[in-house]
């Protein structure tokens, strides 16, 4: 190829790239009305990409009194039913495809770091309500490559199912096994659809979302609403020293799941 032709092709190529790139850059810089999705990298305006260890600001959390759940064995079933029914959580009937947002574990599975050598009979039989811990330092949020999972301003670890690419890195990262994946289309396996809440589609990860939609209407999370009359669950702002939940935490001894990992869970258990 002779020199002038090479030069022409080089200039043509660069022009093409500039021609395609410039309007895009122009649009996004000048228009100002950037897609809301690119402007909101996470939640807290002041904080970095989604990893928030906020000591100030709202931090919603749970205290679960396992003894009260033990006293009423049916209570845990009603909590689970409340959550799974209003959120259209499917029931596939097999362990492989299983999706669960909240469920019951026994003490040795929920707290494997605590000694199992000699456990009292009472503790052995305690039903431990297990759900996403809504960690303040969540490894799943760190891992997500698209910020499909993120911390919101109320302290909940949230998910945006539109953005999830289904890589399941968050499932590998979660130290608590709180997340489930839609291995197939969930619609045929939803017992009764709740028309007020969407379902998910195959190929996305899902978990407890702290009933963000109910909190927005001033209601309590579904499981708390069921358990609160029995005094089995407390819910509120952990960062507010005058809230009920802060009082409970001041008075009662509580434990958390795998605290040595530094995830700072927002769920406390009274054993």
């Amino acid at each position, binding site marked *: 190829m002779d020199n002038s032709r090479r030069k022409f092709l080089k200039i043509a190529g660069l022009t093409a790239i500039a021609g395609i790139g410039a309007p895009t850059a122009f649009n996004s810089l000048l228009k100002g009305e950037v*897609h809301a999705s690119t402007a909101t990298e996470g*939640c807290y305006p002041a904080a970095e990409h989604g990893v928030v260890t906020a000591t100030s600001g709202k931090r919603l959390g749970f205290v679960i009194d396992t003894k009260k759940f033990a006293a009423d064995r049916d209570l845990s079933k009603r909590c689970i039913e409340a959550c799974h029914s209003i959120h*259209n959580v499917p029931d596939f009937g097999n362990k492989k495809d299983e999706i669960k947002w909240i469920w019951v574990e026994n003490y040795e599975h929920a707290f494997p770091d605590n000694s199992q050598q000699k456990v009292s009979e009472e503790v052995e039989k305690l039903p431990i309500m297990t759900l996403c811990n809504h960690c303040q330092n969540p490894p799943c949020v760190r891992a997500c490559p698209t910020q499909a999972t*993120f911390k*919101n*301003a109320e302290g909940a670890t949230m998910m945006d199912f539109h953005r999830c690419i289904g890589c399941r890195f968050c499932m590998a990262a979660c130290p608590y096994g709180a997340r489930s994946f839609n291995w197939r289309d969930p619609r045929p396996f939803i017992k009764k659809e709740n*028309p007020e*809440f*969407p379902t998910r589609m195959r190929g996305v990860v899902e978990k407890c979302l702290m009933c963000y939609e109910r909190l927005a209407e001033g209601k309590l999370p579904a499981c708390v609403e069921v358990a609160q009359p029995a005094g089995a669950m407390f819910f509120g702002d952990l960062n507010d020293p005058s809230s009920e939940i802060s009082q409970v935490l001041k008075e009662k001894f509580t434990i958390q799941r795998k605290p040595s990992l530094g995830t700072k869970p927002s769920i406390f258990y009274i054993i």
Partner: protein
Amino acid sequence: MYDKNKIIPGLIVFVGLVTFPIWYGFGGGGKLPNPEKPTIAKQCVMPTEEMRKSHMVLLNQWRDDIIRMGGTRKGVTADGTDYVRSLQKGCMKCHASKKKFCDECHNYAAVNPYCWDCHLQPKEAN
């Protein structure tokens, strides 16, 4: 031209295939979409032309604002009607039939948005 007998007919066939979309429905233009307007409310969230152009942008903005920024679910139209900023609990409450509203334009434009794989559509009254 070498192989004139093969090339000219081949070219004609090729041009015919490539221009198929143009001449297949020629003169008809296809049936224009006729989305059924809701009877409950008089005004939509935004003017019709704007909605036609950018209802997807609006939905994405609602989503990011509500989920990521903790924005409000409450919206008000220009004529003072309250609405819920939500596809399932807002848009579909007025535009209550996916088949008679949403699908009309989507089918015409041959787009297949997967919104309703997750967002439950109102039960069609048959």
